[in-house]
């Protein structure tokens, strides 16, 4: 093979291999435009969305649903967990449709001695502040002259989708006010951090704390005891996902952050998306609890359904 032929062959091969790889990585970015729903999720909700897509596709074969990548499509709906992204810039007059709730509980590693120490003096709001947050020395609950009460390392995350924001926000702080160390990556790694560090404490949402199959706590994780009513404490002590969900769906406990999960709708929403949202608020609700989330109350569901009806009316009026 002479030098010229070699060069041409090389160029062709590079072009072919580049094409093959580009197609492989972009396969999901080029669906049919009609009857397509694009969803931009956050990591801890992705499993639920995948299940929804699978189930919805069974009954609506003509509709394509996609988990949108980084490049959001103009018709994408985006999951916004309230309490996490409240502080981010968002355009005015956006329409949101709530579809569920998530709860955050404080956790520690199984080998951590702190949960036992806390059994006598469980975590009330003051102790949560002392354990997790930097001291506010002039606040009424501040004790500036004392060392840290607890020998613990708090793990939290700065990532924009982390429940660190909702946990801190629930107690009136910013995530930056959380003591200790930061992790980068999905919140599931908060579990890893506390498992690795015997003095580590953190928090997580229910679907990361509990095993969705066994409905029991994930291996190596334990809950930090909260100073709540006896009946609530008993329910939490069962350390079962369904018991916990049942409790939190029916009772509002001020020490446990519970926030809504919503879809933010684009300016141009297509009929297929609205139909999917209707489904998510009806049949889709069956999968909320299995995936570790709390269902909305019926009143909120009705409000969301009404919002969708209004959007559908507008959409058809334009046509």
């Amino acid at each position, binding site marked *: 093979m002479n030098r010229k032929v070699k060069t041409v062959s090389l160029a062709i*091969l590079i072009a072919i291999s580049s094409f093959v790889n580009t197609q492989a990585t972009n396969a999901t970015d080029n669906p049919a435009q009609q009857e397509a729903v694009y969803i931009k999720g956050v990591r801890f909700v992705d499993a639920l969305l995948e299940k929804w897509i699978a189930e919805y596709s069974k009954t609506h074969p003509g509709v394509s649903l996609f988990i949108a990548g980084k490049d959001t499509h103009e018709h994408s709906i985006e999951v916004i967990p309230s309490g996490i992204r409240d502080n981010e810039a968002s355009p005015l007059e956006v329409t949101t449709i709530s579809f569920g709730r998530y709860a955050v509980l404080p956790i520690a590693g199984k080998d951590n001695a702190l949960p036992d120490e806390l059994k006598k003096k469980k975590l009330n709001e003051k102790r949560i502040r002392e354990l997790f947050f930097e001291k506010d020395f002039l606040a009424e609950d501040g004790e500036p002259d004392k060392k840290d009460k607890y020998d613990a390392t708090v793990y939290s995350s*700065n990532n924009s989708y982390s429940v660190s924001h909702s946990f801190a926000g629930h107690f009136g702080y910013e995530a930056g*006010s959380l003591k200790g*160390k930061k*992790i*980068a*990556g999905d919140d599931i*790694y908060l579990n*890893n951090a506390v498992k690795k560090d015997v003095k580590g404490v953190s928090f997580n949402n229910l679907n990361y704390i509990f095993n969705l199959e066994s409905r029991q706590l994930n291996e190596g994780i334990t809950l930090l005891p909260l100073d709540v009513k006896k009946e609530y404490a008993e329910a939490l002590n069962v350390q079962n996902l369904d018991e916990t969900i049942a409790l939190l769906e029916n009772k509002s406990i001020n020490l446990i952050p519970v926030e809504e999960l919503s879809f933010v709708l684009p300016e141009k929403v297509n009929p297929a998306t609205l139909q999917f949202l209707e489904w998510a608020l009806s049949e889709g609700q069956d999968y909320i609890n299995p995936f570790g989330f709390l269902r909305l109350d019926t009143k909120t569901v009705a409000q969301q359904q009404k919002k969708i009806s209004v959007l559908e009316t507008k959409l058809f009026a334009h046509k």
Partner: protein
Amino acid sequence: MTKISCFLLLAIIFFPFFGSAQGNDVKINGKVLDEKTREPIIGAGISLAGSKGTGTASDADGNFTLSVKSVPATLSIDYLGYRNQEVDVYESAEPVIVLLRENVNFLNEVVVVGYGTQKRKELTGAVTSISRETLSQPIVSFDNLLGGAAAGLNISQGGQPGAVFTARIRGGNSINAGNEPLYVVDGVILYGNSSLTSNSSTSNSSADAIVSQVTANLNPLAAINPNDIESIQILKDVSATAIYGSRGSNGVIIITTKNGQKGRNRIEYQYAIGWSQATKTLDLLNAKDWVALNREIGGPATALSDAEAAALGSGYDWQNAVLRTAATQTHQFSFSGGDDKTRYSLSGNFTNQEGILLATNFKRYTGRLNLERDLLKSLTLSLTLNASKLNQNGLNEYPEYAYRNNPFDDAFRTSPAVSIYNPDGSYNYANPFETGDLRDGNRTTNAVSSLLNTTAQNHANTLLGNFSLRYTVIPGLVVKLAAGTNVNNATSDYFAPSYTAGGFTANGYASVGNRRTDIWQYEYTANYTKQFNRNHYIDVLAGYTTQTTSAESATAAATNFASDLVLWHSLQSGNNREAPHSSASESRLNSYIGRVNYTFKEKYNLTATIRADGSSRFAPNHRWGYFPSAGLSWNVSEEAFLKSVRKTLNELKLRASLGTVGNQEIGDYQYEATYTTASQPYSFNNQLAVGYVRSKPENPDLRWEQTAAYNAGVDASLFNYRLNITADAYYKKTTDLLLRVPASIGTGFSSVLQNAGNISNKGLELEVSGVIIDRRKLKWTVSGNIAKNINEVLSLGNVEQIIGASASGTYFTGSAAQAQYLIVYDGIVQKGDDLSIPGPSWKTAVEPGDERFVNQNGDGVVDETNDRVILGSVNPDVTYGFSTALSYKDFSLNASFQGVSGNRIYNSLRQTLLTPNFSYNGLAELNNRWTESNPSAEIPKARTSAATYQTSRFLEDGAYLRLKNVTLSYNLPVKIASAPSAGFRVFLSGQNLLTFTGFTGLDPETGGGTGSYPLARTVSLGINLSY
């Protein structure tokens, strides 16, 4: 196909897959942001924790990429001014978001010091930085920001827009050589208020009036747009100020303006409109009461019939007629940004500020360009240019008339029985009660007309610029060449038509003047910094600077104009022309500077400074002065024995410094004998010739005024850096005062400038700032400061006292400078009292209802020569301020207070207005004057031959607490999808809204003088748009 070709083909086919699998390293992408603002942090260091690798830095968007062997990995992120953070990275698929929290620890703050910057932790001197919250207040002039903002800094504002203000850092050190601090604006040295006391052409950098009737002082510092200011540092002790040598004794205020940042283009526009009113008006007699009083003393109102008197009713309010609700508008635009090689900032400001007195105003047009360009990797060019056009219409003085100083004073004094306007709407120029100077037949003047129709204006075009080149010779060694200039071209115009008070007796008075001042400054410095094996850090500065000041001025005046229409544009039209006057001066200051900062183990810091100044203002044998200083500080909290409490006591530093600084602000040619033209020409052979007289003797021994200063201080940060405390104690002794001492009669001079006398200042300062709440949506910070200064004149050379016409020129050995030296008032003589008590020399026979004075020497006559005593000083001994910033969600509230105590103000306006007079009005308090039926009154019996003595009756406590600035702002939650960084802010702001004081005059800050321009209370609304 060869084996090599086959291998290549396989490699190419699987290249994309190898791409990800082949390398062992994992690339971590991330972004570093400010936790609060979510703005990218540029240049943050990112490294693998525990690794000695080089790491990486965040780029202009805060992004970074770091390769690590594997995940999980722990990254360490640090950036100056932010808390260091470690992040455990578990996966590299998503970008790592690092939110850095600003380190409120002020010891980590970088402060601008003379000819450089320094970390506060390494400082040995006393330096106060004006807080960012304070600098963000929307105000017209930056001196509004300084009041109450720093311990030991006392600011007294004038009321006239654009006028000079008085600043004192740790008390006054001098009597005749000025007490104003040195201002350094972007490296250019200038004095703000050197023209305060003199209209002579020797004034340094003056944009002041040249024409004596134009009394408003145009402050050259008014050319600085407060929105352009990035930081203000107050250098207080000798360790910080010695680098300015002969000009450092009064402290130094360093102002740095904003520059662009790499990768961040920003456009900002701000508009504000405000309304101002006088902080206070005086309660004057109405017409009915004035007529009653006038009749009682036998004044011209006696001629009025009862019906005429009754018809006057309450009369006319002249005070309110000259005051108004004044509007102020400002437009501010700025554009800044930069790239890898260039940083720039361009701004423009237009301010139109009406004065609360009619016809007075201040306009400012300012443009600024700050440019920095990396010409080469090791060569950087910097340019700062500030060009301004200032226009000021002010009050005009009537020096030639008794009783009234200017139209404002005239308005207080004009009888309320006199109408302001005629029935046809024209001004009333016929005041039947005028018996003083301003009467010509039936013709008199009208205060409102005098104010509106007299022109008394200053214009100044100023250019403040600095050009520099910085070259990094080797790592750590930077040489810098800088050339700066401060050019002022100032003109003053005055025209008083024949019908106004200023031109009344002269039949029109016009005057023009101009002054050109050029200051050129060249600096050649070398700076070497090096860290040796983690234990030793040195920062060495050496340099040579030279500053040349040249000034020229000319004035001309004419009177007796045939027409009032020519204004000041045709002096040749005046029938009488005053002798023109012109002058010129030049001075030079050559200096060598040196400074060594040394830090050992981040615990022990040393600063040694020396400056040698050679000034043309002194005779050759005393031209050079040497000003050394040394400072030590000890970061105690770095010691092992404090580690156990480090969580509570985060930082603790002890400081001490000593050294000598100087003062040379006496004007030029003071050591030389000078001659001036005689007031009248000589006649030789019937020819008039200009004659010369010696105006002052030579003094070849004149030398620097020197201030030896000692300072000890402590800086502490507690409770997670949320409480910061600074305390200082100091002692300063100024020797060889440049003092005008009374000359012996045989010399033919009234006074001579000598090095004589000493003054000391000693005091304590405390500054505390705390972040009380730092929550997600709620933040509350509070700061406060208080300073006590004890001033004492230790010696006045060969005299024990210097007594001026007022306290400002009165000094006694053993007392505080600028002493109130007064006759003691001892109440009112009552019926039945011993009437043989001594009376004042002008009324020795005392009657019931008269003032009673203390005859200190018991000689039977009360007189100013023998019976005055020292009753305090005009200067406060305690100054304080506090401020608070509260933000909740999108709302923020900033408020700052300023206070002083211990000062005594002589209220001469009150004295004037409580002294009954045939022609003029007075305070309503005169209604409660002493009579036999009202013996408990505090106002003596009405009489015209009132005392002209300055007595303790009008001496008042000048203490006050003032809400100086308050701003409520709201960030509108409007977001533009295409411009997420765009911001919209609206604000409501107020200045001088509340004042708590027992002072009865117009305002304790402007003093008790007659005709002083009143201070304004202002409310403004504004909007700020940024992109």
